[in-house]
């Protein structure tokens, strides 16, 4: 049997070429695995700092009581219920504001916008994503604070609503840019087929494009949620940082992240208070994990239903 030209080429390839290819392959493999390594590493580090306190905690009280007195002389209490409520409520409210806006903007940029307007919008949205969170905090303290006090029935301007607005503004650009990518990934042939069947542009969007891009759009929303849950500086400055259950939109609240940021610098390394803050870090980990898991299940559910 004679050799094909390709085989000849392969056999005569210089040795260093093959070695080089192996090396690149290994390097890429390493990059891939490093993601797992980093996540595990971060989790282990946080866990190591918090772990000694875990057996000592009365979990019922920690999770259900709002009483957070980590430095009390008489009776130290580590109740984080109010902070969990604070984190969840501010994130939920931020998403109520950000998801319709973000997805709407993504649809507009991707489907209804062309040429100059589209390019300008994309640049501005990316700029919005690049504003540091501390600057958002300033805006919360000086601009929205005053607006809320003037125009809304709120005794204080630093509250749940203020922080949720900031978080919404911070997550909208992420939702828009990821959502736009998801819509852009839908093949043009779908658009043409739908339009050729007499669908209007809007019918094309909501009957064809949104279902086709749903995984990517869900990812966009999730990244927005992730940003809102993890955000620290802006919420520390804008929520009012009051450890209580929110009863209305305009109550000051306190979040898990802001507590860590505000208190970690004041604790002695290795003290119970210090370890408790790391336990809070673990809780944040758990919350984001649950959110991701739920989303994953939701996606699978959708897939099974239509598949």
């Amino acid at each position, binding site marked *: 049997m004679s050799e094909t030209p390709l085989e000849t080429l392969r056999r005569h390839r210089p040795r260093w070429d093959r070695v080089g290819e192996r090396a690149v392959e290994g390097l890429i493999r390493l990059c891939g695995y490093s993601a797992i390594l980093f996540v595990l590493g971060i989790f282990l580090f946080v866990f190591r700092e918090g772990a000694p306190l875990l057996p000592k905690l009365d979990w019922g009280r920690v999770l259900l009581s709002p009483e957070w007195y980590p430095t009390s002389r008489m009776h130290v209490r580590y109740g984080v219920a109010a902070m969990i409520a604070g984190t969840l409520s501010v994130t939920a409210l931020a998403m109520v504001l950000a998801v319709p806006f973000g997805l709407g903007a993504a649809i507009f940029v991707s489907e209804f916008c062309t040429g100059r307007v589209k390019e300008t919008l994309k640049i501005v949205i990316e700029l919005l994503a690049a504003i540091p969170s501390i600057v958002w905090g300033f805006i919360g303290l000086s601009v929205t604070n005053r607006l809320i006090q003037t125009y809304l029935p709120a005794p204080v301007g630093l509250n749940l609503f203020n922080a949720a607005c900031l978080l919404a503004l911070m997550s909208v650009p992420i939702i828009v840019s990821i959502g736009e990518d998801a819509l852009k990934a839908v093949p043009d*042939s*779908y*658009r*043409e*087929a*739908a*339009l*050729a*069947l*007499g*669908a*209007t542009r809007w*019918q094309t969007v909501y*009957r*064809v494009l949104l*279902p*086709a891009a749903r995984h990517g759009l869900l990812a966009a929303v999730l990244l927005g949620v992730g940003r809102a849950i993890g955000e620290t500086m802006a919420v520390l400055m804008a929520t009012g940082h009051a450890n209580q259950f929110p009863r209305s939109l305009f109550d000051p609240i306190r979040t898990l992240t802001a507590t860590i940021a505000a208190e970690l610098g004041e604790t002695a390394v290795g003290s119970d208070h210090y370890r408790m803050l790391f336990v809070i870090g673990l809780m944040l980990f758990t919350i984001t994990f649950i959110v991701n898991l739920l989303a994953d299940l939701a996606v699978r559910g959708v897939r099974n239903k*239509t*598949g």
Partner: protein
Amino acid sequence: MVNPPAKIAVENLRVSYGHREVLHGLSFTVAPNEIFAIIGPAQSGKTTLLRCLNRTLEFTPHARLSGIVRVDGEALAHVADVHALRRKVGMVAPLPVGLPMTIYDNVAFAPRCAGVRDRAELDARVERCLRQAALWDEVKDRLHTLGTRLSGGQQQRLTIARALSHDPEILCLDEFSIAIDPVTTMRIEEVLRELRRRMTIVLVTNLVQQARRLADRTMFLWNGELVELDRTEVIFGDQPRDRRTYEYTRGFFG
């Protein structure tokens, strides 16, 4: 004999993409309930011509059109409801594009966009269109699975069913048999002969024999020019007017 008013009338149609003109002034008419075949080698402008008929040409950013295309006497450039026009002129593309939804939803898509909500009516339409496209027996037990999971030939018949779902008056088929086997092709040709009683059919095809089997009249396009348009027997006969027609239909070039 009085000629019936033309279903489609094209006058001096020119289309260019950027600086490249691909249709150089075509004029022809298509009669109601006619099967009108367009043959010609690749790059001769057949698909572009079809895209003018339902105004999907305007999706291509640099396409420019001059001349007049009329459907039922109405100039397409002045049509107010382009969506209604696209329902009136059904289109089947050469490579099937199954929309990412169930078989049922694929066929019910256009009627729903047109505002049909009644479940029973949708059911009836879906069944009728799938039967007409010779697909019903193969998919009737799995109407609610994804249309994109069908085989290539089945997907093509699905797009034909979809094009029939909005009761078009004109059905344009762009090389529909490219992705289907000969037996199915024959079945669909049978269906087309049936459908012509209710609609006008414009058939673009690379298979000259398909034009010969089906068409009343055949138009031979070459490099964007109308070489010859006549009754199919003449085009495929021994003495078409143009030598190129004779050579093309006998496979001497193409």
